[in-house]
């Protein structure tokens, strides 16, 4: 792609990344969440992949790193649910909500801007899903592009 596209992609990628992480982090307060945020980040990856050629990208977006991200996300999601069992609760029980520790603030009533430090395990699961989708969707895009490259497109 031309230099304009590459520069734009370089500039936009961090912005997209931060916006995606914002959506992941605010999943329990605003519309959005893990999948949506992860998908936004993956579009950033897609933008970079489109702007550069596959060869230039492959040293930078490593498949193993992405795969690791996918595994960490999935295991993290299940692990957060399993921790409830370790506390003697039901699977997926929200053991952090209202506990006062991480994400454990009670939700304030009435119309307010929303408090990030609430909702218990839901933000943790959002982060796990976000990381997983980030890795998973980028792998899908990368795989499709590698298929195209081999044909010489």
């Amino acid at each position: 792609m031309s230099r304009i596209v590459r520069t734009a992609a370089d500039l936009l990628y961090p912005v997209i990344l931060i916006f995606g992480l914002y959506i992941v982090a605010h999943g329990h307060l605003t519309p959005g969440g893990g999948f949506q945020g992860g998908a936004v980040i993956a579009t950033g990856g897609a933008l970079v992949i489109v702007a550069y050629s596959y060869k230039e990208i492959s040293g930078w977006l490593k498949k193993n790193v992405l795969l690791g991200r996918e595994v960490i996300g999935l295991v993290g999601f299940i692990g957060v649910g399993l921790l409830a069992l370790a506390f003697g609760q039901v699977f997926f029980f929200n053991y952090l909500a209202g506990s006062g520790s991480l994400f454990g603030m009670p939700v304030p009533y009435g119309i307010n801007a929303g408090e990030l430090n609430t909702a218990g395990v839901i933000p943790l699961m959002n982060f796990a899903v976000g990381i997983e989708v980030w890795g998973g969707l980028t792998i899908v895009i990368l795989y499709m592009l590698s298929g195209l490259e081999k044909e010489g497109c």
Partner: protein
Amino acid sequence: MTFADFIITNAPALLIVVPLFAAFLCPVIGKISTTVRNCWVMGMMLITAAIAFILAYRVFATGPVLYVFGAAATNLAVPLDSGGIPIRIIFMVDAMSAFMGIICAIVGVSVLLYSLSSESRNSSLEGYYTLFFLMIAGVFGMVSTGDIFNFFVFLEILSLASAGMIAYRVDGGLAVEAALKYLVLSTLGAILVLFAIGIYYGEYNALNIAMIAQRMQYTMLDKIALVLIVAALAMKCGAVPLHFWTPDAYSRAPSSVTAFLVVASQASLYGLFRVVFTMYNVTMNCVTVGWIIIILGVLSMVVGVTMAIPQKDIKRLMAYHAVSQTGYMLLGVGVGLAVLGNVALTSAFGFMAMEGGIFHIFNHAMYKGLLFLTAGAIVYRIGTRDLNKMGGLGHTMKYTMIFFIIGALAIAGIPPLNGFASKLMIYESVYLFNPILAIIAMVVSILTLASFVKVFHSVFMGPQLPEYAEVKEAPLPMLIGMGILAAICILFGLFPQPVVDMLVAPAVHALADQGGYIASVLGGA
């Protein structure tokens, strides 16, 4: 709380969590070494099976088990502050679900053992085992969920994982072609199910199966939803006239996967029965719906077996027989459904027909799995699946031949194997309902026998062919995998009555008893 209590209390959740955990960690563990990975998958599968058996034991001993995800207590289906609406995802394991869980556990263990050697020639097996565990999780989820939308989610997990598995050996594009066909049809079916779920939600404001069952009015919209869901699930379980994906997918998937795809199809069959019996039950016109299912069953039996006879590809032939055997299950349960409203007829032969149909699900999973595994062993050793090119393998593959004979006699309904036990129950009860149907079922059985005699003759009999002189017996893990299924075929054929009394009859009564299901979820409401 001791460890055993912990396992027993959380068994329904662990049934899903353990396979998912195994699946997700498989790519990482596969990086260490092949041996470690094999130990990991086998260990995880054994743990999953053990949990399934513990859960089944608890269900058969003490009654249905309810598990509410994320609630303060495992049996709190209706939260105190929700106004009487069950909002959480629940797992409702009654005798029927536990019965299907046992099938999945047994076939899962033997298929995994088998694939440890049958797949060892291929690379990138991490993906294979990941998809395999996703299929296991999908089946367990489908059979134990008590929430119709959750059922849809697990149906889709199962479809996607199965499609990936069918395409796993690209096979010059042929496997991908079969997988594409399967995937497009499954997605279409899933969208129909989604529309039906939308209708239920719009009408009854609930997704919980028990809640929908309690509020069921059988309006026009419910009829549309019933048609959508029955069409989709009948397609997924491979019943005629929507069976055309079955031979392609079954014949092109790796043989180990095919054996498990049989279980996957039966999970859809379970979904069909669950919707018809638990959600609708006697509120609908049981006679009409029952006859529709009977006709689907008879068509599947006849079309399946007639299409099977001229096949040249051994796995394709067996796939058509799978279609044909699905017909028996539909026939048995359909007869039970058609007389459901009538207490006298139900106790006379309705329950027996259903017991035959449900028992046949179990037996079919065993002997069909066994047959596909033997076909896989033959293909593994000689590299072709064309019946005309085979011959004289009885000289070198003796154990495989014995297992094939057991499977073939069981599918044809020859005593003393398990196929005979369930088919006899179907014949006897269906004869009381309508003699013509019973005669058709017997004729189909004879044709099945004829077809398998032909296969047996062309694969194992005759002089030893020079090109197969070096063919060896299948490796030991494959033989053990087949041996487990063959042993169960013989055992359940010799002692059918205790099995029917202990496993099948509770499952059938749990399926037919709509009030009991609602009461165990909503607490006697």
